[in-house]
Every structure is written in structure tokens, then in C-alpha cells.
């Protein structure tokens, strides 16, 4: 926990090394302890602890889950609600509870199914403040696992975040590390505005990292991060693809190119200046995402950066994204669908060359 010494100086913060999913569980648990109006609802979230166990166990000191007690046991069936198989009821219900004084965390089991509740998210949650002239707000957090690479096939792999960024009224955030997962989730829960918080299911147990042991640790929504400094080229990405970018950067570095990597962390609003400044500095930019190419993240970033960094760009901005097809299952196809290290590497090489 963050502590202040008697004289007001901040002491060294303790932290825990935990997995990406554990950071999510711990943060919800801690917020439910602090604030009685926070509650969780979703399919299989209660007794079962969620299909990915995101609503199951808090971590112990060593960062491992404390299997003795589930969130359901701690907070009871009303605050850890096994919701019906009805996405409209889950989201619409969360919205109603939010208007009546609560801060619901609604889980959509896979982001692929979020389209079932699209009307409630975009045209109800996203418009509450607007249509009440700011009198009401809608403090809901929608958590949902997205992304491919785990053999999920067509409807267990999608990355539909662009829809919510193109909605007008929603904050969309996508952590790439355990630390960001904790800090951004807490910010979403505490925000008075509706937040779509997407979790890359491929990262759940694949990565661990230090997370401050502080019940007030937050990360500002809308602020990106330079996750690696460099001077020759800017790589922009998030989620599982960010980790691919990091390994490509190592390789490029070993070949003498200095790579800057930016993680926007929040997808709407976007930390435009951070990206533009970096591209101005390096003069070259590659944007990577696994979502569909058309009308998605990579196009949005490219459009903004070309405008803001136009006079400094030395080569065209390259975009690498998923093809505009449904998500295939067969492992070879899944590999063909997802951007690969090689593709990122080659695009960087092109950008570093004559474009």
C-alpha cells in the first residue's frame, strides 16, 4: 500500500508480481471492499468465478491466487451475480443500477458476444450524460476478453473495440500489462463515465508483472505511454501485438535500429500528441493491431499521425492489421490471420529504408 511517512514524504511503494488476470481480479476485489456500490455481474461470474476465473480468487502475498475463498464467498450472491444468458439484461441492467447509485462491473463473457447488447451500450450508456444535460452520469464498467491466438475460432477471438471508439460517448481502454490492467481498471470503476475495458485473453496467464500494492493506484484514462524509447522509428500497438512489437524491437536494436514503442492504453480518447511527437522525432511509424484493417485502430492512428507529423515523416506510415474476414480456427489459418513478428519486422525494415 502507498504510504506517507509522518513528515509527508512518500515512502517506497510495495508491489506484487502477479499475472494480468490476477491484477484484474485483485483490483475488482479491492474496489468492492472500498466501495459498497461496486458489484459484479455476468454469466458464470458467481459460484463458478467466471469462465476465465477473473471473478474468482484474490492473490496472496506471493502473488498466487488464494484458493480458499472466491469473490462470491466474500461478497455474496447479490454482489457477485450469476446473470442470465442475456446480454441486454446484463448491460441494460447495469445501466439501470448505475442510474440508481451503483458502479456495476458487467462482464461480457467474450467480446464476440458484445454485439448482442450494442444498443444498450451505444445508445443508452453512451448517451446518459448527453441526454440529461450532464445531470445524470453512467458509471458502468464493461469488462470483456478479446483477441485471438488461443484457438478460439470465429466467435471467441474477435477484437471489436473500434465499434465502441466510433460511438460518441464511451471510453475504451485496453491494458497490455498487469500494472496497466490494475491501474486502468480502477480508473474505469471510479470514472463517472461508461467505460469499455477490454482484456486480451491471450495475456491472462501469459504475462506477469509488478503491480503497486496500493488500493488507490490508478492510471489516467486517455494517457498513453512510451514503453520503450528510441529514435529511428515509432511502433504503436496494444494488447498481445504490443508484446510482438517489443520482441521485434529487440531484434532491430541488435541490428542497430533504435525503436520507440508507444502503447496508447486508452483507445478512445486517444493520446494523439504522444504519438505525433514520437513520429515527429523518429520520422517513421508502423502501427499494429490484430483487429480488422478497415476502419480500425491502425487507420485511426495513421490518419492522425499523418496530419500531425506530416512535415517530419520520412516514409509512409505502415499499418499492419487483421484481414477483413471472420476469424479462422485452424491453427495454420489463425497464424495467417494474426500479424506476425516477421511481418512487423519487415514493415519496419521497409519504413527504415526508402518506405
Amino acid at each position: 500500500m502507498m504510504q506517507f511517512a509522518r513528515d509527508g514524504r512518500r515512502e517506497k511503494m510495495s508491489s506484487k508480481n502477479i499475472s494480468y488476470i490476477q491484477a484484474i481480479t485483485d483490483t475488482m476485489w479491492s474496489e468492492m471492499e472500498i466501495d459498497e456500490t461496486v458489484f459484479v455481474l455476468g454469466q458464470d461470474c458467481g459460484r463458478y468465478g467466471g469462465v476465465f476465473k477473473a471473478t474468482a480468487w484474490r492473490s496472496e502475498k506471493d502473488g498466487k491466487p488464494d484458493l480458499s475463498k472466491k469473490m462470491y464467498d466474500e461478497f455474496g450472491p447479490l454482489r457477485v451475480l450469476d446473470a442470465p444468458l442475456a446480454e441486454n439484461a446484463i448491460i441494460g441492467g447495469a445501466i439501470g443500477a448505475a442510474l440508481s447509485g451503483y458502479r456495476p462491473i458487467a462482464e461480457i463473457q467474450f467480446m464476440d458476444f458484445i454485439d448482442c447488447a450494442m444498443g444498450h451500450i451505444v445508445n443508452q450508456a453512451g448517451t446518459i450524460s448527453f441526454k440529461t444535460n450532464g445531470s445524470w452520469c453512467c458509471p458502468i464498467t464493461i469488462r470483456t476478453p478479446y483477441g485471438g491466438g488461443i484457438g478460439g475460432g470465429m466467435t471467441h477471438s474477435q477484437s471489436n473495440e473500434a465499434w465502441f471508439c466510433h460511438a460518441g460517448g464511451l471510453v475504451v481502454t485496453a491494458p497490455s500489462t498487469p500494472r496497466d490492467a490494475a491501474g486502468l481498471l480502477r480508473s474505469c470503476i471510479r470514472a463517472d463515465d461508461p467505460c469499455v475495458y477490454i482484456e486480451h485473453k491471450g495475456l491472462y496467464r501469459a504475462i506477469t508483472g509488478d503491480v503497486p500494492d496500493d488500493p488507490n493506484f490508478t492510471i489516467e484514462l486517455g494517457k498513453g505511454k512510451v514503453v520503450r524509447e528510441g529514435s529511428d522509428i515509432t511502433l504503436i500497438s496494444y494488447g498481445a501485438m504490443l508484446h510482438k512489437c517489443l520482441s521485434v524491437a529487440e531484434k532491430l536494436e541488435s541490428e542497430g535500429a533504435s525503436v520507440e514503442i508507444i502503447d496508447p492504453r486508452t483507445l478512445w480518447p486517444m493520446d494523439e500528441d504522444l504519438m505525433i511527437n514520437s513520429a515527429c522525432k523518429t520520422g517513421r511509424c508502423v502501427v499494429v493491431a490484430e483487429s480488422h484493417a478497415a476502419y480500425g485502430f491502425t487507420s485511426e492512428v495513421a490518419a492522425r499521425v499523418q496530419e500531425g507529423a506530416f512535415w517530419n515523416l520520412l516514409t509512409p506510415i505502415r499499418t499492419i492489421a487483421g484481414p477483413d474476414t471472420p476469424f479462422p480456427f485452424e491453427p495454420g489459418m489463425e497464424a495467417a490471420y494474426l500479424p506476425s513478428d516477421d511481418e512487423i519486422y519487415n514493415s519496419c525494415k521497409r519504413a527504415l529504408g526508402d518506405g
Partner: protein
Amino acid sequence: MNSKKINQKQKKSFGVDQQTAFEVLYHPLLKARLLDERMVKLFNQGRFGGTYFSGCGQEATNVGAGVHMVEGDILAPSHRQLGAMVARGITAKRVLAQVYSTAESPDGAQQHPCHFGDPELDIVSPTGHVAIQVVLAAGSAYAYLLDAYRKGDVKINWDKDGIVWAGNWTLKKGSKLNCAFAFFGDGATAKGDFHESVNFAGIHKLPVIYMAENNIWAESVHVTENVPVERLSDRAAAYGMPGVTVDGQNVFEVYHAVQEAVERARSGGGPTLVECLTYRYHGHSMIDPADYRTDEEVEKWKKRDPLIVFEQVAKEDGIWSDKLAKETEDRINNEIEEAIDWVEDESTKPKPDQFIDVTFRDPKFNDAIRKRWEKRKNV
């Protein structure tokens, strides 16, 4: 049809006394009517824009439910709920500010004039999406259950194996829950949202009053083209909740039926589906000539106008008063005239870019929107 049964009770006014009848029921009934007809006129005179959805004909349904609302109860209206809102206490000024899209309107003129609410009275401004509000109401009702739970008034009935299924809770005697009121039309019941909401409320015994306004039409679509059964209230059984059908033109009957439903809900007995047989006199909106229905149908319903029925019942039961009726009308007309003068002379125009500053609660998000918008404007 349950209305038959109810009608056979001793008094058609269910023992409502004269003062209550006039103060609580007649006043909002007449106010809703006079205000509504006036707005139809104002719209036709081109004094405000957009379009207008009239609830004329449906006032008894709305008032009979709306008057049961208390502080903290949420009203999730559809597009024809003037009567319920008036019963809840909305002023003519607020309504007119709304339809005239002035800066003083509850939604700051952001919303369409006919999709409106009033946050001060816990009335949610609806989206245009038919039936979405029905789900929201179930969510608010879940919040009311949590309110009671946090106060220690809800006992969860774990079984001996430490298991409990949804809805298995009891409310402490004497404790009362807030209620959520959802209004929706016959057409809306064809939507999945209706189903997901009543199903959820049925599972968790949530305090929701489902007010189904069966006015025969959904725009030009006949109720038989949206609902394959005779009575909407018959659907309640599919959700394990009581369903009643009442004469939606008789405010006493609606009042009585909703009272029963509200008492049950507040004391932890769960939701009720109340179907009200009613009718809208005007077209779907002011731009609808409503040529899909016959004049006879309209005339037939007008004979059972909520105001006529009120007078008949009140007279039969000896609680009618010409004097009170006249006084009520005068009071309402004053309020309306004053409000129109105010809205036309004194209300103000909203700032054209204010909507950007209220899209989010957190100003930094709105600033992000503004920044791009101003770039577009080349400022």
C-alpha cells in the same frame, strides 16, 4: 379478463374519497390532457420543431400508475408518458422548455423534444430505441434490492448445502423497497429487450411495475402483427409473475391495480405485468395521418375517454363535484398559460456547442472531442 372481476367490486372508484379523487387523480389527468392538446396545437402552428408524440387518450393509464411513485422510484418512460410524468409532478414549464428545446429544458435541448425525462424527478430520458428502457428499469430495481441488502434488510435463504438460487431472499418485515416503473407499448413487447427484462425481474423477484400500454397500434402495425396472443397479461405466466389486464380508460381501475402491484413489489413480492387497454387519439406522431385505422374505431374509444369515465364513475359513487372540477381546470389553465408565456418570451436559446461539454461527466474527455471539432472548424 381481470378487469371484469375488478369491476364487480362494490365501488367503481374503489373507495377513493373525493379529495383524493380530485387532487391525486383528476388533476394530473386533466393537466396531462390540456397540456397535451395544447402542445399538439402549438406544434401544428409551427411554434416548435421536430415532431410530437401525443399521449391523448392514454392519460388514465399513465396517471393511475404515476401517482404511486415516491421519492427514489425511477420512471423509465417510452415516448408517450406525459401523463405519468405529470402524475409524478413534472411542471408545465419543464415540459414546454423541453418541446421548445430551450436552454432550460431538462436535457438542455440536446434530445429530441419528444424523448424527454426529468432527472429531478428520477424520470429517465428515453433513447429512441423502443423497449430499451424496460431493461433499464429492471436494473434500477436490482439496485433497490441491493439498497435493502446493504441496510441489512434482505435475508438470503441459503439451503443446508450452502447453496442458494436466484430470487431466494426475504425482505425484513416492515422494510420497503423502492419500485421501478417501466412503460412500454404493445409493439415493444415483440422486442427481445422486453423479454430479457421481465425474465430477469422474474428470476430475481425485482420490484418492477411493468406497464404495458396496449393501444392496438405500433405506428401502422396492428397489435396482432406484434403479439400472437389475445392478452399481453397472459405473458406474465411465462415469467412467473402476476399479470392483470385493466381498463386503461378508467383511472380508478388502473390506480387500484397498480396499487396492489406496488404493495407487492415494495414488500419483496416481485414484479407485476399490468396490461392497460387504451388508445391514442392522434397519429403515431404529428406527421402520421393514421389512415390505417377507421374513424369508427377512434370514435368508439373517444366515447370512453378517461375524463368522461372519471366523471361517470365519480358521479355514480357520489364523489363528483362541479366546483372542484372547475377549480382544477382553472388552476391547470393558469399554469399552462404562464408556462407558454414564459417559454415563448423568457426562455433562452442553448449554446450551439454545449452538447460537446456534456457528452461525458469528466471534462477531459469532452476536451478531447472539442479539440478535434475545433480543428475541423480551423480555429
